[in-house]
């Protein structure tokens, strides 16, 4: 079953489509990385799913039920844009109010649990407005985690976090996903970090989903290559093309995609009298994959 399923979901502001016929499928138990440039419609889509915006068209279902169902909606934890906290109330009070809002049975205990989870116990008495950006973000995550939600919707949850904060959030999400089967829809611009946890990806552009794929399928698409820098790159390219079919210059190096053994490449170049300055084995990461897709999309739209 899909935790989130949207069909032709659309939202326009003043005639501009922020979300354009979105067909999102977030499988239950997945960590779904929601990727897209600024203004691509990620936050708008997330707000629509949480019922904070009124759709212009289409439908949303959560666990097979309409997203307006109070039972399903009570199972969502969210952090969208900024944590929703009262500035003059303390960290503890803000969490307690959300626990009351969720109608949790032992709210104080639950607040204590999530405070420990995000390492904010020592800041419990601090007023929200006096918290650092990182602390506020961790508080937002803690609010989302109150009462063991079934579905977490997190918009840029690691924004402003230091390395330790990022690690805490990452490990917490992985743990919740594995031990409690929590489904996570997470958007982030820090793609390297996202690639450490995501099991599925959706790439959004101009409000439309341009790619939706499991992480395993994406890994297969992310090719390995040998990157080599020589003292005569044009000649080296010609030589390498005589042996390999996929040779491409990029970012000041020559990439050989149909070879994984760097010693074989360097040996071949050496045989032909080309000096190798640098050579390494690399993999296209999520970030580069994303940029390639975006560049491809830009070219397509120009041609169109």
């Amino acid at each position, binding site marked *: 079953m899909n935790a989130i399923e949207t069909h032709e979901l659309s939202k326009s502001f003043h005639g501009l489509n922020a979300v354009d016929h979105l067909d999102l499928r977030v499988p239950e138990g997945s960590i779904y990385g929601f990727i897209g440039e600024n203004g691509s419609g990620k936050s708008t889509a997330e*707000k629509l799913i*949480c*019922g*904070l*915006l*009124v759709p212009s068209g289409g439908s949303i279902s959560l666990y097979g039920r309409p*997203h*307006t*169902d*109070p*039972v399903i*909606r*009570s*199972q*969502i934890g*969210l952090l*969208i*844009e*900024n*944590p*929703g*906290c*009262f*500035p*003059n*109330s303390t960290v503890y*009070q803000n969490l*307690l*109010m*959300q626990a*009351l*809002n*969720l*109608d*949790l*049975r*032992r709210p104080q*205990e*639950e607040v204590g*649990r999530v405070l420990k989870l995000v390492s904010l116990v020592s800041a419990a008495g601090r007023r929200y407005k006096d918290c650092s950006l990182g602390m506020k973000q961790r508080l937002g995550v803690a*609010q989302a985690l109150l*009462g*063991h*939600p079934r579905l977490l919707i997190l918009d840029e949850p690691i924004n402003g976090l230091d390395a330790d904060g990022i690690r805490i959030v990452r490990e917490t999400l992985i743990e919740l996903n594995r031990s409690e089967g929590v489904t996570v829809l997470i958007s982030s611009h820090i793609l390297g970090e996202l690639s450490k946890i995501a099991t599925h990806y959706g790439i959004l552009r101009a409000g439309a989903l341009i790619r939706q794929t499991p992480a395993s399928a994406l890994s297969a698409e992310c090719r390995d290559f040998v990157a080599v820098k020589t003292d005569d790159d044009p000649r080296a390219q010609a030589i390498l093309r005589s042996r390999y079919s996929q040779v491409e210059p990029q970012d000041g190096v020559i990439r050989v995609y149909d070879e994984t053994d760097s010693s074989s490449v360097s040996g071949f170049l050496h045989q032909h009298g080309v000096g190798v300055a640098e050579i390494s084995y690399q993999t296209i990461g999520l970030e580069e994959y994303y940029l390639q897709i975006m560049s491809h999309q830009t070219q397509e739209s120009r041609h169109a």
Partner: protein
Amino acid sequence: MPRPASSGARPRVASMLRLDFHRLFHTPILYVMLTVSAIIPALLLTTTGLDASGAPADPSGRPAPPSVEHTNVWQLIESTGRSGGADPLDFGGYANINMVFIFAGLLMAIFVAHDYISGFVKNIFSVHPQKADYVISKTVIGIFSGAGMILAYVFGSVIAGLITGQAFDVAVSGLIWCLLSKILLMGVFCALFLGVAVFFRSKLWITIVFTFLLGMTLYPAASVATLDSTPATTLASLLAGTVGAVGLGAVSTLILNRRDLA
């Protein structure tokens, strides 16, 4: 401690009420409004210039200031014919018990606007898809706070009356029906003020200005509850309060359902 999965309206509204009451008692605005409500009658009584017999105390024999015609403490509660008196500059005439209706509106304006300003409204509506929950809870908070302010005003009047040696002659039943009627009428006012607050959302100052203007225009309507009130007056107030709260609450719900929240 998993999240409860109940679709019933009662537990949903109950959880909203728990949240709102917790917030109400943990923010200074309620206490400020209660204090102001208690201080106003004290100021009125101590500045009326009445002596214990109710006669003007001005030794020159000149008439008392226009806003002062009270002969005993309870006339502050009744405040008939003086709500927004004939003279628009007669500010003393405005400062009667019915003014707490405006204070209740201001409290609601601040309460609702802070939900939006802080972004906490996202937390509320992500788990409460039925906007009526919010409207009911906030209206109840308004009525409760308004009732508290009415009682604070009575308390302030009594204390100031005791200190200044005012007369306390009143028919107790009339006084009780009068206060009950005013509390019940709070339903209409709070529902109206809530409509203004959810319409302007985070625009706190615009909400405050509209609430104040609306309150100044309409609060004389609350002076129908006098010291001569009977159970019939209270019943009429209950009816007006309920119909007004439900009708205006439906409008607020419609506003919330039709508009984006964040």
